């Protein structure tokens, strides 16, 4: 009797801890927003909200793809280069219609993802190495497509194309809407479709999943294609926002995406993952930069933009340390 009681107690504590670690990031995000709202004029303005979402939607999108990949126990280092490559593809296709450009950019990203998935699933090469190689390859393709120019001009007469990155829909910035739609779909896919359940299962134990009859190769292919396609969409947004395809942009974005996923509480070992926490993680990392800008604007302290990465790194450390503490307690209980 006692043992069942203790077991129930333990289960309750574990649940509490996991809720804490999940909502802790959300609480931090809300606290930071409240702090910003109280301290800075213009922080809660529509203008700040809109520019924040416009820029950070790209990081949200690649973080979502990264979240799915990491759930399967993999990693996708190629997303930053894919964003750059797709932005060039989008710019090159912009004279042929906005939706051609949209399709082209997403397809180009998905193709890189397909290649990633194929190499990982069929050749059995580690995800880290595979996507490291495609990181280099996609960057090379981006530069080749751009003919080694710094940027590829967008057809500015194509107003729909410009709308993708700079327009509004129901007073919300279009990139933000795209991101939210993608996250809703991602959350549904994770909870309610075989694809999502199986992706989690693979991360939890690949051999066991195989024995259960899951088509491990196909699911892996799926997550990398998803990650590539989302990076492609981010590339479209980038090209539309800056008015040019950017073959040299996106350097190190893959690591920002990994940081968002980690801050969101998803372990890199796979088998767990929360789409919403990843969104919160991405927004939190973006918000730190936003707050820093406002703080500088107040003129009391003047931190150079270079402090941004120092603070982000310190923040990442803080979060992962707290998480590993929680995880260890969970393991002990």
């Amino acid at each position, binding site marked *: 009797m006692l043992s069942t009681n203790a077991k129930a107690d333990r289960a309750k504590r574990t649940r509490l801890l996991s809720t804490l670690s999940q909502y802790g990031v959300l609480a931090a995000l809300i606290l930071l927003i409240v702090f910003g709202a109280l301290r800075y004029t213009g922080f809660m303005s529509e203008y700040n909200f809109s520019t924040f979402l416009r820029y950070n939607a790209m990081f949200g999108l690649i973080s979502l793809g990264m979240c799915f990949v990491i759930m399967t126990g993999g990693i996708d280092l190629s997303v930053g280069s894919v964003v750059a490559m797709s932005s060039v593809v989008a710019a090159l296709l912009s004279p042929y219609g906005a939706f051609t450009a949209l399709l082209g950019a997403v397809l180009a990203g998905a193709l890189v993802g397909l290649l990633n998935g194929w190499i990982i699933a069929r050749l059995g090469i580690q995800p880290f190495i595979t996507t490291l190689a495609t990181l280099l390859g996609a960057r090379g393709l981006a530069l080749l497509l751009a003919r*080694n120019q710094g940027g590829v001009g967008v057809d500015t007469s194509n107003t729909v194309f410009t709308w993708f990155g700079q327009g509004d829909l129901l007073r919300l910035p279009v990139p933000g809407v795209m991101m939210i739609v993608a996250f809703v779909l991602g959350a549904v896919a994770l909870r309610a479709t075989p694809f999502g359940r199986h992706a989690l299962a693979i991360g939890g134990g690949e051999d066991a999943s195989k024995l259960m009859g899951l088509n491990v190769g196909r699911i892996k292919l799926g997550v990398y294609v998803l990650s590539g396609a989302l990076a492609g969409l981010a590339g479209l947004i980038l090209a539309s926002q800056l008015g040019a395809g950017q073959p040299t942009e996106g350097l190190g974005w893959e690591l920002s995406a990994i940081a968002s996923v980690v801050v969101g509480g998803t372990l890199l070992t796979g088998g767990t993952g929360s789409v919403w926490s990843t969104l919160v993680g991405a927004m939190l990392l973006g918000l730190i930069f936003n707050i820093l800008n406002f703080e500088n604007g107040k003129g009391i302290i003047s931190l150079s933009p270079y402090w941004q990465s120092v603070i982000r790194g310190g923040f990442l450390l803080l979060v992962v340390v707290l998480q590993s503490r929680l995880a260890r307690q969970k393991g002990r209980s």
Partner: protein
Amino acid sequence: MSGEINTAARPARSGSGGQGLLADLKQVLPSILILLALLIFNAFFTPYFLSVQTLNVNLTQVATIIIVAMGMTLVIATGGVDLSVGSLMAISGVLAPLIFLNPAFASLQGLGIALAFVVPVLVAGAFGVLNGLFVTRLKLQPIVATLVLYIAGRGIAQVITNGQLQSFTTPAFTYIGLGRPFGVPFQVILMLIIVALTYWVVKRTVFGRYVLAVGGNETAAGLSGVPVSRVKLAVYAISGLLAGIAGLIVIAINSSSDANQVGQGMELDAIAAVAVGGTLLSGGRAQVLGTLFGALIIQLIRFTLLAKGVPDAAALVVKAAIIVIAVALQQRRRRE
């Protein structure tokens, strides 16, 4: 008790017989053959290829990658990875000029130069220790642990100089990147010494055995008395120290230090060299010579393509293909 463990862990020289340099070279034979094929191809089809100048150009370009890749080989052999090397190069690179250009050393230039060689490398090593502590004490996964300094490290370098470029003409310092004793670039000599040392450490020292044991099976290594945490701490420290040295070489070659540029992307080049060289990313193996040849192959292919007028962007695509093909071939060979 501890005596027994020590004997067990000591390299068994007379053991399997596969310990010698020759046997090691045999293991990386495919890499050597590819390298030879590239050399022969270039000898015939690239004008002025067989010149000391071409050799020096290639070796000076690849020296820093090889130096960093030696540390990376050790880290990867323990089952870890170090993403922070490029950022640590930047930190070391901005510290050195701050020291030897400092007015405080105006009258004691020798001391300034000496400190400029020692302090930045030690600082980079200290950051490496920090990486190691993240991994051992905080139990962070190596990718996440070193991601912290990858992000923050370059920021620290930029904050120190406020993102400003530091230019200098200090022959005593730039010797590390531009000096040519006996016609051989100084950093190439340094690189060869570091490769030889790393090879010796892996093959002939207890520490080398420990590194492989930790990467092979951490729990088993711990149970048989290997100081797992100390070994891990040490490999990240070594990786940091070597990144520090590479940072000094890069700024010496450029005669300027740019926090935004020094070491940019170095972590990828180093990991690629290790992977092409045949060290498994899952740990337990360290192909020091393989890493050396891996880096040389990547460099020579890039040089060949550039010499043939292929743009650098296309060379990137080829580099990607080489990494995949090389690793795929090795995995097939291992399975057979």
